[in-house]
Each structure stands twice: as C-alpha cells, then as structure tokens.
C-alpha cells in the first residue's frame, strides 16, 4: 500500500468556511454601493475624501503595523468608513490626518487588529471633530453641477479652508436643532439631503446591512436594539409634544444613524462578544444618541454615543458572560449563601 506523507494537526480537523480576511473583504464589498451612492450624490469631492482618509489609514499600518497586516483589509475598512463620515467639502489633509490618527492611536498603539478598545474610524473622526470643529461641520449645499468640488478640498496642508459664503448648507439634524425645520422622511431615505459623504442614503446602507447580517458578519442585535431604543424613546417624546420633539422616523433616518448602527457600532472588535451585551450596548447607543441630539449641544451624537459605549465593552463583556453549563445559577448561589448563613447562626 502506498503511504502518503501524513499530516499531523490538532483537532478539530474540520474548520468553518469563514475567515477574517473574508469577513473584511465582504464588509468592504458591501461598502461599495454606499461609496457609489456617495460619489453619485457629492461628485468628485466624495471620492477624493475617501481616498485621502484611506491613504491616511493605510500609511501607519504599513509603517509600524505587523508584517503583512495590510493584507487583512481592516485598515482599508477603517479608512473608507472614516471617509464616509466626513463632510465632502473638507480639506483633504484633514481627512488624511483623521485616518492617520485613527489607525496610529486608535489601533496600532493597542497592538493592531483585534486589540483596540475604540472604533478607529470613529476615534479618527472624534479627533477631527475636536481639532477642526468648524471644518467638520461645514456642509455643502445640495444640488449644483456634479463635477464641482463641494468645498475647499485642496486647502494646503495645515492651512484653513477658504469657505465661500452661500455654498454651505445644513444637515437635516442641524436644521432641526437650530432652526426647527424638519426634513421629510422620504428625502432622508433616498439621500437628497446635505450631510457627510456616506450617510445620506439610508436605504442602500440598510440593504447592505441586511446582507451582512444574513452572512452573520454583523451581530443583528446591535442595529436592531439601536433602532428600537431610538424609535421608542423619540416616539414617547414625540407623543408628549410633537411640536417640540422630532418624529421617530426623522430620528431614525437622519444623520449618521444608519451608517453608525450598521457599520460602526457593529465593528466586531469594539462591540461586546456576548449577545446580551450586544443588546445593552445597542440600547445604550440608542439612548445616548437621543439624549445628545435632543438635549446636548451637538446636532448629531452617533459618533460620541458609539465611542462612549465602546468604552463600556470590556465591562459589558465581563458583566454579561452567560452562566456556564452545569454551574449553579445566580438564584441557586444566593439560596446556598442564605442557607450557609442560617447554618452559621444556629
């Protein structure tokens, strides 16, 4: 009998088909329609911003990341996601800086993929929000020729953008918060409003999210609990005073809610590992978004809510670990303790 060279590997000898690069690539592919919609809406500016933030994210990964860590595609996703959250008219150097900061200080400092505590794309954006509060809230007007730039993309590095008055618009959330002008849900849903590069077209993001959830590449509990909490909380407020508070549909489809709930909050590394944890995590984000949007100083709170809840993830993971099979339940433990105490007393 012929005897082949035998392999000796550890069990299990059968592995599932999913792999980390495959997950990353699928997420990236699912982002393509979102990117396409962004370019359709905002023209070349959107494309430039996405390129700049992606380059910014790839550079530190290439310089100091582990050998071959570019291959897993995670830095690429961070870059694209960051680009999608920025206003299209922002100077490119800022987008680049955001990507660089997000990866260098949000991810590599923790040891690279899988180790970071905060979503690197959002951390990059939070950095930009804190560093350049004006540039990141300067939104272009909708409409106009497709080829035109939507702002001063080509401002020199470290220099301020030259904003021409009259070309700036306002996001639906900003309009609501500061001028109390609501935007119709249909224009939010189909993306004809002003806003960040990739956040205006709700239905495309939702579809891509459904695809990812079906592939089990995102934990559907997170977006569902975010949506449910936001909807219920706003709904209650809206029923109390419909003139003062926005409608729950408006809340759900405006701003970065869709992009954040589908792509940011579900980042595997920075969301809880337990399902119960995911429910709480999502509910926390939903609550915070409503609180910040309605009572806070900023019109949009998605980014901060997710970052804030990111910080709770290690804690949630610990607190929501399921009861191990065969171990006594909490109630049983309590009963045992009580019995012990009684025994001690007698």
């Amino acid at each position, binding site marked *: 009998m012929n005897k082949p060279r035998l392999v000796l*590997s550890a*069990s299990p000898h*059968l592995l599932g088909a999913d*792999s980390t690069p495959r997950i990353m690539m699928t997420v990236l592919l699912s982002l393509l329609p979102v990117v396409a919609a962004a370019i359709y809406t905002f023209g070349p500016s959107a494309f430039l911003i996405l390129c700049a933030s992606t380059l910014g994210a790839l550079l530190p990964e290439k310089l100091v990341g582990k050998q071959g860590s570019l291959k897993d595609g995670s830095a690429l996703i961070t870059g694209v996601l960051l680009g999608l959250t920025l206003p299209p008219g922002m100077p490119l150097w800022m987008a680049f800086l955001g990507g660089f900061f997000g990866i260098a200080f949000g991810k590599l400092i923790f040891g690279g993929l899988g180790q970071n505590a905060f979503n690197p794309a959002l951390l990059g954006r939070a950095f930009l929000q804190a560093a350049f509060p004006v540039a990141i809230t300067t939104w272009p007007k909708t409409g106009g020729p497709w080829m035109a730039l939507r702002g001063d993309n080509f401002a020199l590095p470290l220099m301020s953008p030259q904003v021409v008055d009259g070309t700036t618009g306002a996001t639906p959330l900003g309009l609501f918060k500061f001028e109390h002008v609501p935007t119709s849900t249909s224009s939010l849903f189909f993306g004809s409003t002003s806003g960040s590069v990739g956040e205006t077209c709700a239905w495309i993001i939702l579809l891509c999210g459904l695809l990812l959830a079906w592939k089990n590449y995102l934990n559907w509990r997170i977006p569902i609990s975010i949506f449910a909490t936001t909807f219920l909380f706003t709904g209650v407020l809206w029923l109390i005073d419909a003139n003062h508070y926005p409608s729950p549909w408006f809340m759900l489809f405006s701003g970065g809610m869709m992009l954040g709930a589908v792509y940011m909050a579900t980042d595997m590394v920075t*969301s809880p*590992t337990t399902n119960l944890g995911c429910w709480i995590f999502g509910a926390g984000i939903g609550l915070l978004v409503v609180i910040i949007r309605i009572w806070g100083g900023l019109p949009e709170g998605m980014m901060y809510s997710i970052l804030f809840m990111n910080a709770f993830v290690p804690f949630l993971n610990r607190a929501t670990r399921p009861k191990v099979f065969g*171990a006594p339940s909490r109630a049983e433990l309590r009963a045992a303790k009580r019995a012990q105490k009684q025994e001690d007393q007698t």
Partner: protein
Amino acid sequence: MFGKDFFKHGVHPPEFKELTAQEPTRRIPFPKEIILPLAQHIGAPAVPLVKVGDRVERGDKIADAGGFVSVPIHASASGVVTKIARAPHPNGSWSEAIHLEVDTWSAQEPRPRIISNWQENLSPKEIIDAIQQGGLVGMGGAAFPTHVKLSPPPEQKLDLILLNGCECEPYLTTDHRSMVEFPDRVHLGTRILMKCLGVQKAIVGIERNKPDAIEIMRATVPSDLDIEILPLEVKYPQGAEKMLIKAVTNREVPTGGLPMHIGVVVQNVASVATIAEIFETGLPLIERILTVTGRGVRQPRNLIVPIGTPLEDILQACGGFAEDAAEVIMGGPMMGIAQGNLRTPILKGTSGVVVLTTEDVKPKDVYPCIRCGHCLDACPVFLDPQILGSLGLHQDYETMMEHHLSTCMLCGCCSYVCPSRIPLSHIFGVAKASLRSQGVRV
C-alpha cells in the same frame, strides 16, 4: 420533565455521512498481528494474564481489570503472544501492549461462554460483574468503563436510561449502522440495563439525519418495554453526554458531577448492543463496528473489525489510500486524533477512521482575534473561549481555571467557527494537560 429536542449553541458542520451511511457492515480478514494496548479505557490499565509464547483462543481473557475503574482485555483472535511491549497508541504516545501473532489457518471459533437464562439466574450485581468481565467500555469514543456507570451509590435514585444514537461527529456512521442492522440487540441490551438498574423508562436519542435508523428502531421496540425513540436536531455536539441529557430532559449535569447524579444513565447504542452480545453469544468485547471513511480512502466502508487491528490492515481492506490522502484521524474529525504511525491499533473506543485529503487539510493563515464572539455563540457549555484563548496564549492557566476551563470538553466548536483560525480547543487541551501535570483536576 422533558425538554426540547436540542441544546443551545453548538455548530452544524457539513456531515459527509453520505459516504458510508448506506454501506452495510462487513467483516475483514484477520490481520497477521493484533496489538492490544493495556490502557484502552479511562481508568487503571489492565494487568496482563499471559506471557510471551502463550497460545490464546479468540475470546480468552488475556489481561485482568487493574481496579474498579478498569476492565479486562480479551484476545480478539486466536494466536500466540509474541511480545508484551510498547506499541503506538492512538493518543499519540507509546504504551504497553500485548502483541498477538494471529493463527493463519485457525477457524477463529470462540469458546462458548453463553450465560444462560440471565433473566432469572442473575442478580443486578452479577449482571454488572458480567458486563465488567466482558471488557465493556463506552464505544462512542470516551471509553469509560460501562460497569462504573451502572454502579450508582446506593442512595442515588435513577429514573431514566438514555441511549445515545446521535453520532454527531461528521463522517461517522458506526452507531447508525448498529441501529439499522442490529436494532434487536440494542433493545435486548436496554432490557438488560433496565433490569439491572431497576429503571422503567428508556429513551433513544437519534439525530434526524438518520431517518432509517429512527424508523427501524421504532418498529422493533418490544411491546413490553417503555422505550421511546426520540428524533433530535442535527447539531454538533449533540452526542456529548451532557448535551444529550440537556436536550432530552432539560437537566444540567452539575460541574464536576456525573449524569447519575441527576438520575440519568447514558449509554452509547453500540455499547448497549455489545451488552446484549455478551449475554446472548457469550462473546466479550473483541470486535466492533468501525466507519472507515473520508475522501482520502478509496472505498469508504463500515467494517466489523477485531479490536487491536492495526490501521494499515483496515485501510487495506478499504482499498488503500486515495492519491491525495494526507491525514489519518482516529475518531471523528472534530475530536479525533491525527495518526502518524499506521501500526497504531484500533481500540475498543475507536469509533471511526477518517482519511482526509490534501485539499481538506490545506494549512490556513492564523489572524489575530477580532472578538467577533462567534465562539461564545458556539460553545455548548457557555464558556468564553475568546478570553480563555487569550489567557491560554499568555499561559495564565490559573486565571483560565477561574474562567471554568474544567467545564470545557474540548469539543472543538470554538475552533470550528473561529474566522481567525485560532486553534482554541488545542490551546485549551494544552492548558489542561499542563494543569494536570501539576496535579490540578481539570
């Protein structure tokens, strides 16, 4: 009292059972040499009763139980003891074994040892002794001496015999064939168990992917016995004792406890069939049904092989290796152990031989953990393999114990689902071995 037909979590790997599910069992020619390791079961190894040069007949006891948690070993063929020396053991080590040179022209007729009229003549105690003397161990893979499971402490009340016909490991069809071909033996074995334990109720749990087995078993249930055939969800590791109990009765075996502590005795269907054989034919456990399968073997088959047959002869009987065969596994692909030596013998607890191809074993890149949580969703005992894995990589075994490492049964679900291909169950195995060497019970 009864739960659902499934437990929570677990995985569903591709089954590959179609390769052998319809293959009837067949005998193979006796090999030239039979190797019988003294430690074929959990517990103390057996003590040899023969010396080099002794002639033994098929079915003779050649080694006696080394204690209560131990069973004798019987010659699985007539022949001459050539040596008692170290031989490759399926667990990867070398261990003491009795080597038999098989008589070429022997009829291999066993000496009759029929236990007549056991129903009237034997007390439960005597039945259990007979089972021990028959060398019986769990044949599903764990090889736990059967009589130990049947000897609960006197104050423990048992109310259910649970027959494990799940066979959740992919590829394997051993139990499947036992049930299809020998349903009466399974029922007879159940009858014996019920008598000796004084339990009135038995349930046979069978995964739904074996409809023929379910049907045949149902059709053959003796009218005077309360045996229920329960179809179960197809899910790995449905056949793990604790999972099966949870699925059928919704009871949880407490950490560190045994099924008997919650009133249940679980037996593999093949073991039960062998119990019947002991009392029916008088033959001890000297042969077993074995699935030889995988795309790396030319003719996947279900065989009846003498215990101690080397792998080589078994593969020979199945047409040998295919062109691209690459890995030989004893047991199922999820928990089985890869073999490097083809002289390794089949043991009482070996439920199958799976030969994988180069394609199946292609090395895969390992990536950092991305905390996707899939392992938590897969772990049937609700551990946090993600934390355990990272602790294991830092060799922080003590903290691993705090995270219930001892509950882990190395089923491999976490490794199976891990998209980063982190060998989690291997890490846990190493941790357990290291802790055990320090005398920690895990």
